């Protein structure tokens, strides 16, 4: 299995919305390659007949009574926001100029 190279790390970081500079990319690419090589070991024993486990203790259809419970007030919900306006979260512009 191919290790992670610098350009792949840059692509993944962009997907994960983390800006990395050249210095970060050099360091992380080396470390992540070593980690990926080590964890690829799982493929040695993961044969087709083994079912996957997504959750340690399976439960299904977890319901609660359909009743209205108190929730955060608008003020509480906005209290930790970096910016708010008119009782709403204020966000930077979504679309660029071009």
């Amino acid at each position: 299995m191919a290790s992670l190279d610098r350009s792949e790390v840059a692509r993944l970081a962009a997907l994960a919305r983390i800006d990395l500079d050249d210095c970060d990319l050099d360091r992380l690419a080396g470390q992540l390659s070593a980690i990926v090589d080590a964890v690829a070991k799982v493929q040695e024993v993961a044969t087709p007949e083994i079912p996957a486990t997504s959750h340690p203790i399976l439960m299904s259809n977890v319901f609660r009574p359909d009743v209205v419970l108190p929730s955060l007030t608008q003020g509480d919900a906005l209290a930790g926001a970096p910016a708010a306006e008119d009782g709403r979260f204020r966000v930077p512009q979504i679309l660029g100029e071009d």
Partner: protein
Amino acid sequence: MRDLNRLTAQALVDAFASGKTTSVKATEAALDRIGHVDGEVHAFLHVDAEGALKTAEAVDRDREAGKPLPPLAGVPIAVKDVLVTKGLPTTAGSRILEGWIPPYDATVVERLKAARLPIIGKTNMDEFAMGSSTEHSGYGPTRNPWDLERIPGGSGGGSAAALAAFEVPLAIGSDTGGSIRQPAAVTGTVGVKPTYGAVSRYGVIALASSLDQVGPCARTVHDTALLHEVIAGHDPRDATSLPGSAPKIVAAATRGREDGLEGTKIGVIKELMGKGFQRGVSHRFEEAVHQLKSVGATVTEVSCPSFDYALAAYYLILPSEASSNLAKYDSVRFGLRVDDGGTIERVMGATRAAGFGDEVKRRIILGTYALSAGYYDAYYGSAQKVRTLIQRDFAEAFGSVDVLVSPTCPTTAFRLGEQIDDPLTMYLNDIATIPANLAGIPGMSLPIGLAPEDGLPVGLQILAPAKADDRLYRVGAALEGALVDLWSGTLTTQAPPLEGAKA
């Protein structure tokens, strides 16, 4: 009374009941101790003297008035900073949440308040619980009270160090791959990761949702049991919370201490011994196994061959889940925003670059890779199959024994800085603790002595089948009883005094 900080929670409860001391005195003593030694230890990210004393005063008033009180009322406690606390700063050790004041309490915090324990403060941790040393905290590392140049374990190093430094008798931790048990082992304290779902995770800042579990930490098995009973139980606000009643934990601890382990079958895990384990760790472990036999247990060796793949599976599953869980730190609803006037995509990239530390970035990128199209089956899918194999190993082992034991971690506390630049070496610290999280089963670490070569604490891990958390306490209390008799006191009493305390 003499040094209140050195008393167990049970001894404090008894002293409150007999009128020898008060909750206010115990809380003030804890705050004084923190003032003296936490400059060196740095177990706390935030101390709430006012809130803790207010709770203590109310408990003392009610006791005076003869009102009924819950069993641990008035005993000071520390809470890992991964649990949200209404009105108290909560950061999960990350700069991205610096200054955030949650608008609600985690269910576990609500339970502590209902049980009327003064919450002394929030403890330091590796950022978002990613790490085994607290060196990945965005606010500087915690130091091990046994040797200030060494790590206290992680991610819950703050909670474990607060106990070992006699700052508090009780603490809350969280364990995703060993973050309660490994810090307990390297600080000579006790910590339990309950069965997955046994303790509510509502209001616990998520790392890897299929692995995370909150649990109790203390200096003795009995104190840990008392706290376990306060926090365990079904919570309708957590869809993974186990329905039904929790096992009787305190009674199990009492039974273990009084009756020993006659008839109990214990398995030693072959794959978690020998190669890769420090000599003094193996030495103390073998001695402890003899102690278990001396209190009546039958000990056999069992094999769990898939454990050799547990670490690899864990470092695919955890980053995958973490990369998704940490997407919420997007500069919109809470936490940091680095705004350069550009589009939100630019702002998110700059915010997450500035707010996350290196280990968090590594794991998010690794998880993004493992989940990406073309790699999903090879990595995440394969890791989930290994998870099945680990569960089968445990099922087979528990078919022939009641509990399993191993050393909690391969070495004693290493030096600060020693492994910080080598993530893979750091990950190996959790080799013995990770299988329990993958399978959802409960585990305990308790101190079994000091390694002869460096004089640092060694821990023994006990593992039990899912929902049989009570077995950890029965076996743990029996072993602890034998060892405490041998040492004439708990292991933490052998810890060197901290400089601050001498002054």
